[in-house]
């Protein structure tokens, strides 16, 4: 939807004789790289207006001459009939005195430092292009790099603004005669389609085949390369494919052996893999529907709707049992699915005929690979072949990940199609700010005036490549948007790479450094996301934001993660928490749920002395006797042991106590398995009312200490270790208890503080069952509750939260 943000200036009375008036419009928003100028051109022609249109570093300026009626129709068309990828805002309209034109023209782009600059994200392949690619009569029949003004790559190919071909990575592909005709023909849908290409003049595929002894055969040519790649897929091989924002590793998603081999080679034993389905034009969900549940519930139709949107994100959706290879999502019901998003993927899926696993081509935690040579080198031990092209990817954009929770999309990872995520702030910043986010799932945010831009997913900042990409993305954003930060914000954790970087950045650029506590930044995400839709910022209402995640350094130098904050951004007061426990093993605790389980058991002296210990050694959740005893002594002597109130670790503990794994290959696996068990219990009884399930609906006991309302997890241990119920029922009961505890904490705070709005933020709320149950219960209890929709509320949103929290902390000071 478009909005008029500017005002129409009062018009002076004009002499009757001058029927043609000259209006100058400045149009901002997503208007570059989406076929906006040709649209203006066509619209002006339609209403017989004269004048010109031009790009001006991120905005479009148009001068139109005609009468008031014509102009009004033209304005309405801009707002209501714009190209699907455009998001125009009419920033200003003014009447100007201008000589009369005899036609309408598209003028050359102008550069301006002050203008509102917008970088479009990368889009899918539109239906018009898919029609062409499938039609043997067309010039671009089966051409893997087909695109037009309505589709194709953007962010990953843009060197600089204005968005013109010389400023893209296609600058090294001069247009052939036919393409140039389309490019310059104002009525063609490829008029000024900057990544325009055809087999004659554009990028080309190649295929490197590695045999058993890693000797190479290099095949060049679109059809020949594709043929080889498809053949390899059919033989259960693993192929590295260069896409739009980086490489994927692909294999047959129905071939269990191939998927296992991919897992083995990538050293990724059980983290779920994404699956790509074909998007065959007008019946694009046909293949997906065959493999995934398609019942008629509203949520599911929303999932299907989002999966086919032009951004082509990965959506978590329930898969039918027994169709896809079981190793794709071991232990889980949901699978991450996406539709073919580029012409190359479209051709692969079409020729192969079966869905493919499409997981990021990288080493675990690093940003997706983008460079041919680097990929060939780093994926050498994983891939049997490389299907790649010679169009450079200027910066990585990994796939976006979305889960539908409580009827709305929740972004878990922003990347291709979404990033850079440009949003408007409900206030004006005094100076430009760079926020560098956290350590895990890192993104950065750049904010100036009333704008904020969030980078795509960068990854875990513990590898050389991640930190290189991190620094490059910061440079790129500053350059593309022509912003030089006058303040830098980081997390209060001194050990994050991003914090070290921010400190150096502050010194080098001689600008102030602000540190924002982890969970206050999480609260900032809620606050910021909520007020994004407000054009002015007027909020007197207090908030209670629950920030539940795994680890963040608290103001008291202990590890927080089960906290609730009352107040408003910049003025948070910590009011709720979890009974603290001591966690041994540093960063290892996040990947070894047994440590969390033991932490709770030791804290409550349920196990500890030798005699009790030996009774428990047979249990699945404890390590070998010798290791256990060492860890216990270390815990007792507080060696590498820290106080924690993390809700994430309580979920870890529960998963370990239910035998869902002592250790896990990635953080969060325990809680994911736990949620699946809980969902399985619940779906068995889908129609049953929870009150009929003989479930304990009481919250955990709360106690007050130092003005904090603290929940005591002790009785969870009895529940989880008891042998009365099935694992599924215990998992379900655990979720209900935790959810009811949040409700009870909210009610307790309400009795002290009065009315407030509730926000939820942090990785724990990625749990769909938990969040939906909590939101439903909060509604029943007449609370006004909010879970972020436009910005990730896990650590990927920290940078955005830091901008908000940093701003309000400064206001307060």
């Amino acid at each position, binding site marked *: 939807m478009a909005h008029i943000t500017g005002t129409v200036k009062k018009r002076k009375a004009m002499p009757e004789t001058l029927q043609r008036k000259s209006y100058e419009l400045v149009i901002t928003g997503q208007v570059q790289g989406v076929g906006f100028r040709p649209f203006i051109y066509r619209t002006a022609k339609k209403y017989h207006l004269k004048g010109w249109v031009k790009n001006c570093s991120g905005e479009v300026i148009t001068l139109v001459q005609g009468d008031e009626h014509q102009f009004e129709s033209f304005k309405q068309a801009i707002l209501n009939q714009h190209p699907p990828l455009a998001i125009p805002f009419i920033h200003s309209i003014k009447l100007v005195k201008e000589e009369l034109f005899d036609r309408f023209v598209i003028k050359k782009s102008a550069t301006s430092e002050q203008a509102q600059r917008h970088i479009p994200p990368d889009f899918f392949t539109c239906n018009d292009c898919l029609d062409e690619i499938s039609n043997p009569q067309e010039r671009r029949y089966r051409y893997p790099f087909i695109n037009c003004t309505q589709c194709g790559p953007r962010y990953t190919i843009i060197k600089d603004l204005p968005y013109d071909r010389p400023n893209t990575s296609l600058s090294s592909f001069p247009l052939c005669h036919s393409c140039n005709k389309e490019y310059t023909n104002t009525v063609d849908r490829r008029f000024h389609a900057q990544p325009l290409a055809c087999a004659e003049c554009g990028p080309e595929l190649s295929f490197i085949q590695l045999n058993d002894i890693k000797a190479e055969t290099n095949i060049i040519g679109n059809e020949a390369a594709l043929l080889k790649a498809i053949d390899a897929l059919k033989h259960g091989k693993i192929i590295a494919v260069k896409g739009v924002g980086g490489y994927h590793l692909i294999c047959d998603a129905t071939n269990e052996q191939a998927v296992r081999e991919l897992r083995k080679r990538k*050293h990724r034993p059980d983290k779920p893999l994404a699956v790509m389905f074909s998007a065959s034009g007008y019946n694009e969900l046909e293949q997906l529907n065959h493999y995934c549940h398609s019942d008629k519930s509203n949520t599911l139709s929303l999932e299907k709707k989002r999966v086919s949107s032009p951004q082509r994100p990965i959506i978590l959706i329930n898969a039918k049992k027994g169709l896809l290879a079981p190793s794709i999502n071991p232990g889980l019901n949901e699978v991450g699915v996406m539709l073919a998003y580029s012409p190359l993927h479209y051709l692969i899926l079409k020729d192969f005929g079966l869905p493919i696993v499409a997981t990021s081509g990288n080493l675990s935690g690093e940003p997706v690979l983008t460079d041919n040579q680097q990929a060939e080198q780093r994926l050498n031990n994983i891939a049997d072949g490389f299907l790649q092209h010679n169009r450079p990817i200027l910066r990585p954009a990994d796939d976006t990940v979305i889960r539908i929770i409580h009827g709305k999309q929740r972004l878990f990872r922003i990347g291709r199609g979404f990033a850079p995520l440009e949003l408007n702030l409900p206030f004006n910043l005094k100076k430009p700010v760079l926020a560098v986010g956290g350590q895990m799932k890192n993104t950065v945010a750049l904010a100036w005036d009333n704008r904020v831009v969030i980078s795509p997913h960068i990854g875990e900042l513990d590898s050389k490549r991640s930190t290189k990409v991190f620094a490059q993305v910061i440079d790129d954003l500053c350059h593309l948007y022509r912003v030089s930060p006058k303040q830098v914000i980081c997390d209060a954790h001194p*050990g994050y790479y991003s914090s070290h970087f921010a400190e150096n950045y502050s010194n080098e650029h001689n600008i102030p450094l602000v540190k924002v506590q982890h969970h206050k930044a999480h609260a900032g995400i809620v606050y910021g996301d909520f007020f994004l839709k407000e054009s002015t910022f007027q909020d007197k209402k207090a908030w209670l934001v629950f920030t539940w995640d795994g680890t963040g350094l608290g103001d008291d130098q202990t590890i927080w993660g089960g906290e609730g904050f009352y107040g408003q951004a910049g003025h948070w007061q910590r009011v709720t928490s979890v009974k603290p426990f001591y966690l041994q093993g*540093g960063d290892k605790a996040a990947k070894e749920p047994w440590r969390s389980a033991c932490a709770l058991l030791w804290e409550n002296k349920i196990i500890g002395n030798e005699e009790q210990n030996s009774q428990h050694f047979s249990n699945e959740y404890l390590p070998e006797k010798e290791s256990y*005893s060492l860890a216990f002594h270390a815990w007792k002597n507080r*060696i590498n042991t820290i106080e924690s109130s993390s809700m994430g670790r309580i979920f870890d503990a529960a998963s370990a106590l239910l035998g869902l794994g002592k250790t896990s290959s990635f953080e969060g696996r325990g809680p994911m398995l736990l949620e699946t068990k809980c969902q399985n219990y619940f779906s068995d009884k889908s129609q049953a009312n929870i009150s009929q399930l003989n479930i304990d609906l009481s919250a955990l006991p709360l106690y007050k200490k130092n003005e904090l309302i603290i929940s005591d997890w002790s009785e969870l241990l009895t529940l989880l270790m008891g042998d009365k119920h099935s694992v599924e029922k215990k998992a379900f009961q655990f979720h209900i208890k935790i959810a009811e505890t949040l409700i009870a904490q909210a009610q307790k705070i309400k009795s002290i503080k009065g009315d407030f709005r509730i926000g939820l933020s942090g990785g724990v709320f990625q749990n769909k069952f938990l969040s939906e149950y909590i939101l439903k219960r909060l509604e029943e209890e007449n609370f006004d509750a909010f879970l972020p929709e436009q910005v990730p509320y896990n650590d990927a949103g920290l940078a955005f939260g830091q901008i908000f929290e940093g701003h309000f902390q400064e206001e307060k000071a």
Partner: protein
Amino acid sequence: MSNENEPKEQYISLAHGNGGRYMRELIDNLFAQYLANPFLNTQNDAVTLTLEQPEIAFTTDGFTVNPLEFPGGTIGSLAIHGTVNDLAVAGATPKYLSLNAFIEEGMPFEQLERIVKSMAKAADEAGVFIVTGDTKVVPKGEGAGVFFATSGIGIKKTGLKLGMEQIKTGDKILVSGTLGDHGTAVMLAREQFGLKGDLQSDAASVFPLTHSILSLDGLRFMRDPTRGGLASVCNEISRVIKKEVHLYQTEIPIHEQVDSVCEILGYDPLYLACEGRVVAIVSEDNSQQALEIWRSLDAGQDARIIGEIREGNANVVLETELGGERFLEELEDDPLPRIC
């Protein structure tokens, strides 16, 4: 600790530090007796030495450790090895040491004797003489048993150029043996984990190792990775030379038990102290030769080439088994968990 019923002379008392008979007896019967050598004369205020080389190396160090005795050494042997090793990695031949002892009132005489004996043995093995010394007794509660301070003089071949400024891109990084043994052994002994195993501190003189490769033209720099371990030495190097220190994880020798203890406790052995290992930076040309020389020595059997100096930002990069490149960051005051 102190027990009123025990005879007084079984424990160190403040009288042992008052300059009188008790003190003389402590020095004569303990320090002078075990540490005896031709240069040590407790009657003189200063010792006169003649050095056979014009260029000398001179260093000093203080020693505290808990517990005072641990598998593979005591604070006494540590006080010798620490200073000897500082001289050795500077390319010097350690010769003469001074010794200061700060003993806490109530320290069992017998334990002190064991410590001084191990000190004497370490000095003997390292071929150094303790030529001057002093003892003080501090009141109970003001010391942790005993502290030592040693200073040392070593002689150096003229013109020997060793230092971080000599390091060049492409140079190789060698270690003489397994890493983190000392740190782990001391920690296990201190916390009384009651773990069975044969893990010993690596505490030893590194002089045989350093001396063996001194003649190599391509030898640039040596350091013994004590506090903060290999990671801290590498961080210091990268910071000073402003290049990347690149390590291969699979090549770094770690004792199996150190690995499993660290795995459980959540420590990284690359940050744990060694007291008898050398990190050497050697030109690529000389690196294989250096490795062979070390491997032919008892103390260098586990020696490995573990990395190289690369152009790039001043970072320490650990290349993992899977080809990932992880940073080994500078040691934080107290590492806090970061993973969410």
